[in-house]
């Protein structure tokens, strides 16, 4: 029995749907040929088998194919996907979006092809940069959010691979470049949150910028910043590299731009969302730069407090904006961090029988509180917005 039928029966039993409505929905789903996933699956299998055969044939004879043939074949495929997109551009649907995605993807294939043919030793960041710049104009034509997410992820892949490249090239410049990278993440947020009518980007691209920037700030920068509060060695950074103080200004300046973008956008974001997101942005900057700028030494307690505050701000912003998954995740991270604080503080006692019992009680209590009360907090936050 198809899953939709099972669901409909459950809903009828629960009194959410009338049997006639359930029957009508089932008939509608059955009548819609676009939803016939069995046919699509078999057709997809055939296409995958055909493409795999074609690839193995080409790979098996790769050395015997001339350079000119490879380049001509590449351009034919690229133009073919371009023509396919142009023929489907006025329609909404999967053909338009798939042809555009393939069109974008084949530019990456082309870059790798030329890299192999002419033995170019491009660094990964150079490949990503060239590709993301190349596919920006077609990406702006997309009507699906995945293409925008792919483009923004490509942009940040360029940034991260460049940081790794710099690390190998010159370890002394890594901290400064890292700070500039953090500034770029803030500016990415500013671009995404900007809602003036002039220079307005497609909504999908704006959302992708916001999602990736917030993701990098809370998942990437915050753990790094928390680790810095534990590191005794970071105290010498300013002495080793005096100009580093200048570079710590970059996240702050970018943070100001991001906050201004949030505050000045038209139409305005609601007050609570604005305030909680501003708190998140400022806290990350403070949390990252403070141990580098001031010789405060090892401050585990302050580091932990900062970490929890950043994630609390993320949870609040998620709650005010009804981002349920982010809210659940943020509150879960806070709960886990509480448990870690206990284990860090009493790790010696935790090995004893009583210590294990206390640890178990704490973990159980935290899990209970998280499970029982997070829904209420979320509802309260949503009501405020």
């Amino acid at each position, binding site marked *: 029995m198809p899953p939709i039928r099972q669901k409909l029966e459950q809903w009828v039993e629960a009194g959410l749907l009338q049997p006639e409505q359930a029957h009508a929905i089932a008939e509608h789903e059955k009548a819609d040929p676009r939803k016939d996933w069995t046919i699509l699956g078999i057709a997809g299998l055939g296409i995958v088998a055909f493409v795999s055969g074609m690839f193995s044939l080409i790979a098996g004879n790769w050395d015997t194919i001339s350079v000119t043939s490879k380049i001509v074949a590449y351009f034919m495929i690229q133009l073919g996907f371009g023509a396919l997109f*142009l023929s489907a551009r006025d329609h909404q649907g999967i053909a338009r979006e798939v042809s555009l995605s393939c069109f974008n993807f084949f530019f990456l294939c082309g870059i790798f092809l030329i890299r192999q043919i002419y033995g170019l030793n491009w660094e990964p960041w150079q490949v990503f940069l060239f590709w993301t710049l190349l596919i920006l104009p077609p990406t702006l034509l997309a009507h699906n959010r995945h293409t925008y997410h792919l483009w923004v992820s490509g942009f940040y892949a360029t940034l991260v691979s460049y940081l790794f490249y710099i690390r190998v090239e010159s370890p002394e410049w890594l901290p400064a470049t890292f700070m500039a990278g953090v500034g770029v993440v803030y500016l990415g947020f500013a671009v995404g949150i900007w809602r003036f009518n002039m220079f307005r980007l497609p909504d999908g691209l704006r959302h992708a910028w916001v999602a990736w920037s917030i993701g990098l700030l809370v998942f990437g920068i915050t753990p790094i910043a928390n680790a810095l509060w534990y590191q005794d060695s970071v105290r010498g950074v300013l002495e080793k590299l005096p100009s580093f103080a200048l570079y710590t200004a970059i996240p702050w300046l970018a943070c100001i731009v991001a906050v201004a973008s949030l505050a000045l956008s038209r139409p305005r974001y609601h007050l609570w969302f604005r305030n909680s997101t501003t708190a998140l942005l400022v806290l990350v900057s403070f949390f990252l730069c403070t141990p580098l700028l001031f010789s405060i030494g090892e401050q585990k307690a302050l580091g932990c407090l900062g970490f929890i505050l950043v994630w609390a701000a993320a949870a609040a912003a998620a709650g005010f904006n009804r981002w349920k998954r982010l809210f659940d995740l943020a509150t879960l991270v806070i709960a886990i961090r509480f448990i870690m604080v206990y284990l860090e503080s009493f790790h010696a006692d935790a090995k004893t029988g009583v210590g294990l019992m206390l640890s178990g009680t704490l973990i159980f209590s935290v899990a209970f509180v998280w499970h029982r009360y997070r829904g209420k907090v979320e509802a309260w936050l949503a009501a405020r917005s």
Partner: protein
Amino acid sequence: MRTLFAIFFPILVMGIWIGQQTYHHTYGDLVELPVKGYDPGDLQIGHYLKFNVDYGKYPICNKRSPSRKWRMCVCLDIVGPDRKAIASWSGDCAARPPWGCGLWLRGYCFYDHFVANIERYYVPEEYARALTVIPPGASIRARLNQNGTGVVTEFLVKGEPITEFAKRNQAAIRNTPEREPAESDAQDLPKNGEVETTPQAENPSP
């Protein structure tokens, strides 16, 4: 109009880039550089043969540097009857001599070793067995452009393309009768007169 621009502009840029690479590959200044062995355990990665370029006796990377890896430019001179290129100057790229440095490479020093991103060459995987070491007398032909970037166009073994050398060597290996493992490689390969163990690479350990 916007849609047409979005589709054809990247194709145009890609075409210009490919044209530029093809031009560089075909019409850049041609130089021949001797090559020497690399770590034999790391000789062929996938389809690529890895090696070190021998720039002669000029001490390219002996200057003090705060880091283990730093940018460097090298001027090349063509010398000797076999017209091989060797290094005649090295230093900061901005300080490159305005004359006498028509052929030059941009790269970086990794400890005492100069890397110009020309240290690999595509070889079909089927020849992997015949190319377990860099043969003596090996060299590469590279095209250099005006920005100091090089592209390897050919890998030669005593003037012969490496694929020809590998084919002959592979045939020789195939025709050799099976013997006890202790005698096999060490005695058979030198008989072909081509493959010998090269000196170990000056690959610095970090």
